[in-house]
């Protein structure tokens, strides 16, 4: 299938998501972004920068969900990735989780469990760049860059400038 999003399309998607976040939450007073490593963190920082340009800066943090996964025993132990919870915590905030691809929903379930240990946000919302379908849990995204119907054998690869040197989303077999 090749490239499904190029650099300008990714930029446009993130801008739209930023606007939608402001709209949905009636401003940004209570909003906090938490990116899921690795590329969700980059996205969260980009959305955070856009929110700063459009309206005002919001806290941006990182949440590694490895220790909350339900499939740990299927693979060798994974290295843990950074976690950085913004000072002030999550209590009463409108929390937007940010990840690159939404697939089975298991990562998000793990993230919800982790958030449950951290406190009680007023709401938890989900922003993803790509929703590729095939959910195995009752989870949906509130903000989606692009819906891409895929089959299970296909591979969705998100590349971001800060990590991969260029911005694009590819689907391959």
């Amino acid at each position, binding site marked *: 299938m090749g490239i499904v999003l190029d650099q300008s399309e990714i930029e446009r998607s993130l801008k739209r998501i930023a606007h939608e976040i402001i709209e949905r939450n009636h401003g940004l007073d209570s909003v906090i972004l938490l990116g899921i490593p690795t590329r969700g963190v980059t996205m969260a920082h980009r959305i955070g920068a856009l929110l700063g340009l459009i309206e005002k800066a919001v806290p941006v943090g990182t949440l590694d969900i490895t*220790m909350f996964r339900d499939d740990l*025993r299927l693979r060798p132990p994974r290295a843990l990735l950074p976690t950085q919870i913004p000072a002030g915590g999550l209590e009463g905030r409108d929390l937007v989780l940010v990840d690159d691809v939404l697939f089975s929903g298991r990562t998000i379930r793990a993230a919800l469990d982790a958030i449950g*240990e951290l406190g009680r946000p007023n709401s938890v919302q989900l922003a993803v760049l790509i929703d590729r379908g095939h959910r195995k849990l009752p989870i949906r995204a509130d903000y989606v860059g692009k819906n891409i119907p895929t089959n299970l054998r296909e591979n969705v690869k998100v590349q971001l400038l800060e990590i991969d040197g260029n911005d694009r989303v590819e689907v391959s077999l």
Partner: protein
Amino acid sequence: MRGSHLLSIADLSRLEVLEVLDTARELARITDGGIRKLPTLRGRTVVNLFFEDSTRTRLSFEAAAKRLSAEIINFSAKGSSVSKGESLKDTAQTLEAMGAELMIIRHSASGAALRLAESGWVKSHIVNAGDGMHEHPTQALLDAYSMREHFPEHDRDFSGLRVGIVGDILHSRVARSNVLLLTTLGAQVVLIAPPTLLPIAIDQWPVEVSYNLDSEIRSLDAIMMLRVQAERMKDAFFPSEREYARDYGLVGARLKELKESAIIMHPGPMNRGLEISAQSADCRQSVILEQVANGVLVRMAVLYLLMGGAPIPTGGMLI
């Protein structure tokens, strides 16, 4: 870590050591972020198999296992069937029959953990929590973790750091594990002790040796005071406690000789007034309580890396 046991620091490569320390650091961030309990080992059983007295190591492993949601069974030889003559083999097999998947063993015999791991008596992961006068790997890992937090410019490489280990080297498994680990990370180690408390063949170790604390103290970035192990001192290793404290204790005015940036470490339990004065133990440069807190993190990392992932196919060898 590649293997299914943690028996000796000698089995770990530099990268494996850094893997444990990095994992512990991320666990610290998760904990600092407010997550106190992780579901990672839910439903798994860990046994503390302690044939020798311990407070902090046993409690530290217990806290680590609980924070990862594992079940922990505490076994101590005192008041158990060991006093009726039950062997290590039968004890371990009994505990495994109760569902244990990982055994943390402390024993007064050097090599006890290795024996348990290699004998085929049990399938469990084995973690050495101190075997006789041989090794205490998790102590060395937590010491390295504590040093790393204080010397950020040496995050992945300890070369240029000079670490003094002072006191009863002869009986100390902490010293043995630390020498192996610190030299693996590139630090320069100097052992400071009276000749009677140094093991024979010390010249084979990759360390410097000194009998004089006062001539070394100004050069150290970290000073690790070892406990004078009264229970292993059946012979007269030094003339009197007062003389030992005067020559080898971090006591009195000697504290002022330390570099401003140097840190004071002690694996505990301390004999205040003997190898370390109360003033040294409680001063700004002391990291002794940090070592205790870091111990829980490092042990969580070890438990996670050994048993958090997919089971290693049978026949998995030592690390």
